[in-house]
């Protein structure tokens, strides 16, 4: 066996050394040193992928999944009705980073990217080079978007820097054409069981990967009895601890003012928490049973409950790691001069025979995501119950930091960041259109319109549902058990007409 230690392995080992300190609530570096005043506040957007707000104890969930988020909430503004713009990463993250809905930025396909016309309309460019702009993501889908915006970033940290095993190399080999190269690599050397276009080298790649995974398992496997958290269908293995430790060391040292976007994968499946979380929530609790849906995948209720339990454990693990980061940021004084926004891109479903988020359905567990924003020096909790959307984050953070809100954004100012707390009548949309052509009109999609207490969902173009509507009163029926579409024709017609007009408007530019 070779005793050569590669520089890369040494650096990885050093980065993992702090893992030994997980269970000790120690601070890192000098305590309570506020960062140098810069005149402008910093902005840190921390996104945990696939975080469904109904599963957070902060938002009233049965299980104590987010005690650390609750601690953060004591000095933050908690948005109780924050809605995702889409139900999976590509369009949802596109909406956060551009402040527009998927039908505008056009990243609504799996592994989608925003249209060429929209590339310049992004968060990083809007903040300008007066800010030190940094981004990192575990997610290859989000990386496709960040690659598009990398001209505006001072640092786009390579994905592989915070992975244990990373089998993707094309973005490093072809940095100027990273997105197309990465998508091609997924065809040449796929890790998800599809047949590769490479006949021979793909076999060598599989063997090499198996060797690296076995080495990682020997080193860390005892800490993750359910297996390592992975991304891209097991192509990449990561430790959340590594990313959190990097943030704990990096954020306090960033040049100021900074804008940092961090997109971490947990609690996205597979649900593989650290060992102390694997036996939590053995409470026998079962959620409300809900009827099957036209897009049901026929997953049995018992199986859904088991997966829900596994998800809750993974969520609790992610919350614990967030807690470590939050403690450091607080102790280092970073929060005195920083807007810290905690959010997600979309939620997750465990009901109606559906598990996951790759579905045409758009129920609240998919749409309702967390949003907490701590203003610089904020000490008191504030609660906002007005309905807000992912697309509101960009204009609000720009406004809060003294930048003009861009005309191309479709969002509004959030209450607490320039908006009014009792705003009503706002129309919030969620768009699911992954099977539409990027440059064509929407003719196969699910679109949700939430206006005050009502939510209208329109399914169109599907074999299962060529043209169907559902209407819910989210105030009286937050579990969405009663479809009011047949019994409330006046409200249904008003919302239906508004939705139809909006779809016609967005389709007009893409006819032919």
């Amino acid at each position, binding site marked *: 066996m070779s005793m050569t230690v590669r520089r890369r392995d040494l650096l990885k080992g050093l980065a993992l050394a702090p893992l030994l300190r997980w269970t000790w609530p120690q601070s890192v570096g000098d305590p309570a040193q506020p960062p140098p005043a810069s005149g402008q506040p910093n902005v840190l957007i921390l996104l945990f992928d696939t975080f469904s707000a109904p599963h957070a104890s902060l938002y009233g969930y049965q299980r104590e999944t987010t005690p650390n988020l609750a601690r953060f909430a004591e000095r933050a503004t908690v948005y109780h009705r924050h809605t995702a713009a889409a139900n999976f990463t590509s369009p949802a993250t596109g909406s956060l980073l551009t402040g527009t809905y998927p039908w505008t930025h056009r990243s609504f396909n*799996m592994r989608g990217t925003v249209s060429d016309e929209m590339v310049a309309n992004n968060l990083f460019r809007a903040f300008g080079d007066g800010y030190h702009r940094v981004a990192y993501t575990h997610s290859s889908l989000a990386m496709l978007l960040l690659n598009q915006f990398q001209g505006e970033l001072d640092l786009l940290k390579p994905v592989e820097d915070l992975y244990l095993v990373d089998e993707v190399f094309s973005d490093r080999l*072809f940095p100027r054409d990273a997105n197309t190269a990465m998508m091609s690599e997924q*065809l040449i050397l796929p890790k998800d069981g599809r047949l590769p*276009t490479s*006949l021979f080298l793909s076999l060598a790649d599989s063997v090499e990967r198996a060797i690296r995974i076995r080495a990682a398992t020997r080193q860390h496997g005892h800490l993750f009895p359910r297996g390592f958290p992975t991304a891209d269908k097991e192509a990449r293995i990561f430790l959340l601890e590594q990313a959190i430790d990097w943030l704990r060391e990096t954020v306090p040292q960033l040049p100021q003012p900074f804008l940092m976007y961090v997109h971490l994968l947990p609690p996205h499946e597979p649900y593989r928490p650290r060992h102390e979380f694997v036996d939590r929530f053995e409470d026998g609790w079962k959620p409300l049973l809900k009827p099957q849906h036209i897009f049901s995948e026929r997953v049995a209720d018992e199986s859904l409950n088991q997966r829900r339990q596994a998800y809750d454990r993974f969520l609790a693990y992610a919350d614990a790691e967030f807690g470590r980061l939050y403690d450091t940021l607080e102790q280092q004084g970073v929060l005195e001069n920083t807007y810290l926004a905690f959010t997600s891109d979309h939620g997750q479903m465990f009901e109606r025979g559906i598990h996951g988020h790759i579905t045409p359905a758009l129920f609240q567990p998919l749409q309702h995501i967390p949003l907490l924003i701590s203003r610089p020096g904020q000490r008191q909790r504030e609660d906002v119950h007005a309905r807000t959307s992912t697309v509101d984050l960009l204009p609000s953070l720009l406004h809060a930091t003294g930048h003009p809100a861009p005309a191309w954004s479709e969002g509004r100012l959030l209450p607490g960041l320039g908006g009014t707390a009792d705003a009503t009548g706002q129309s919030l949309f969620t768009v699911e259109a*992954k099977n539409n052509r990027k440059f064509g009109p929407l003719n196969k999609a699910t679109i949700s319109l939430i206006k005050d207490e009502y939510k209208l969902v329109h399914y169109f173009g599907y074999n299962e549902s060529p043209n169907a509507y559902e209407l819910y009163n989210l105030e009286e029926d937050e579990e969405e058990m009663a479809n009011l579409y047949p019994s409330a024709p006046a409200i249904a017609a008003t919302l239906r007409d508004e939705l139809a007009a909006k779809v016609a408007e967005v389709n007009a530019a893409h006819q032919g």
Partner: protein
Amino acid sequence: MAIFRQRLAPREAVASVFAICVLTIQAWAFFNLFREVPALRIRMGFWEMLGTVAYVQAFAFLESLLVLLAVVLLAALLPFRWFLARFAAQGSALVLVSVLWAVAIHYNGTIGSWTGVQMVAWGGGYLLAVAAAWALIARYPKVEAGIKEFGRGLVVLALLYAFVGVLSIVVVIARNL
């Protein structure tokens, strides 16, 4: 230098083996790429799709060259009577058996999860298949002649595939300038 040249296969023989390499490897790449076209069409514009095809074909072409290099090197290393004497036929047979084995492995699960026993079984079976093919070629001149003729006949078609490969490499380079 002369010793080195003596260990290299004749150009015509190398060309027919290369034809087998490039046709089988790029045909496999084309076949599996076109299965993805419906999904790619939805989210990509024309130039992006062209770029994706270029990366895939460029990789396949380079893979063909690597396989050819491996075959040529093996012939240079083995005793003359074992391989170089019948390079065209044995080289083509080696490539064809390797292609069949690789396809079978791809359709039979993940090589990365094989046990040692599975590795030995598949590897042993592969070596036996190659040995059997070479034995047939050595014993039956008509088999050797048939395989040589087959390879020669594919050279023109292979040139077309090679052109696609080279063009793809040019496109990849251009996209990264």
